[in-house]
């Protein structure tokens, strides 16, 4: 009985590994993919700033980078001029650098840009009358939420404290009677 024909053992096949192993080619492709994916992380930090724009003075250049990160590119709108490749953003970066070299403070450069394009050009909205809702609205809503929860739980606590008043004498007698009757 032991040696009856069984197709599954008749044909010998090399043992299959439990875990699928990549062929050399596939492995290479996989690691290239991972490496390239990691590269895109670096890419998001790469500069739109062209080498010709960079100032020789590293301190001024660092200030220029910092200031231009705060200005919205008015063409592409969701990028700072430091990130944007738009032509106007480039000219703004150059202008920022020229002003810094001419001795403007960061605030002066910022004021100039706001005087031309309005608060809109600042990526971080300033705190003033028209932005109170923006800055304090979320706090207000969280405050309301906490207050509501607080009131809700306070009320529930009070109501649970009230209900178990205990049994009245009459009820206790009836209960005892019932229990005795059952025994």
């Amino acid at each position, binding site marked *: 009985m032991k040696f009856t024909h069984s197709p599954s053992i008749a044909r010998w096949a090399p043992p299959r590994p439990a875990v699928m192993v990549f062929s050399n080619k596939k492995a290479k492709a996989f690691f290239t993919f991972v490496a390239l994916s990691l590269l895109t992380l670096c890419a998001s930090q790469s500069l739109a700033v062209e080498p010709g724009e960079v100032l020789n003075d590293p301190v001024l250049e660092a200030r220029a980078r910092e200031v231009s990160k705060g200005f919205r590119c*008015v*063409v592409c*709108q969701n990028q700072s001029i430091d990130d944007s490749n738009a*032509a*106007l953003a480039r*000219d*703004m970066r*150059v*202008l920022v650098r020229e002003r810094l070299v001419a001795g403007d403070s960061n605030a002066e450069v910022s004021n100039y840009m*706001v*005087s*031309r*394009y*309005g608060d*809109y050009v600042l990526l971080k909205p300033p705190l003033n009358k028209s932005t109170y809702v923006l800055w304090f609205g979320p706090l207000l*809503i969280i405050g*309301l939420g906490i207050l509501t929860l607080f009131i809700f739980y306070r009320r529930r606590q009070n109501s649970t404290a009230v209900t178990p008043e205990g049994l009245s004498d009459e009820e206790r007698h009836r209960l005892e009677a019932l229990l005795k009757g059952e025994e």
Partner: protein
Amino acid sequence: MKRLVYLLPLCIFLIIFGYFAVGLNLNPRDMPSMLIDQEVPAFDLEPIKGSTRGFSKEDLKGKVTLVNIFGSWCGACLVEHPFLMEIRAKGLVPIYGIDWREKNPDDGPRWLARRGDPYTLVGDDPKSKAAIAFGVTGAPETFFVDKRGFIRYKHVGPITQKNWQSSLWPLVQELRKQ
């Protein structure tokens, strides 16, 4: 009275909904100009290639003028160009051109030579100096300047027969009266 409390979340929702309904329907390209009712910013532009005279802030004083930002690379400028030619031909109002960001200094003059020059004077602005001073975000943009040299209106996009008749020409006439 107590029941009204339960309507509070709904009210808050409606307020937020209202904000979003208005805010999300605004066109992000419609940015208010900071320069309305301000003096024209100081600028002094070189002439474009082949021309002898650019223009500066001083040229805009004493009369109602239009300052038009254009470029040979700009498609919408081509759309409004025939109408600017018409304004020039009829002598309605002097238009001053800022030739903005030409890659090649020949491009602007060639564009004007081929299609006609509607401008009283043209200045060259390859580095956006004047454009940024005017708070320009794209081309074409047209600034309406009064006699004192103050900017009174900024028109974004092409000037057409339609918007000229309905609002821009009446504005020029209004500014002339002041």
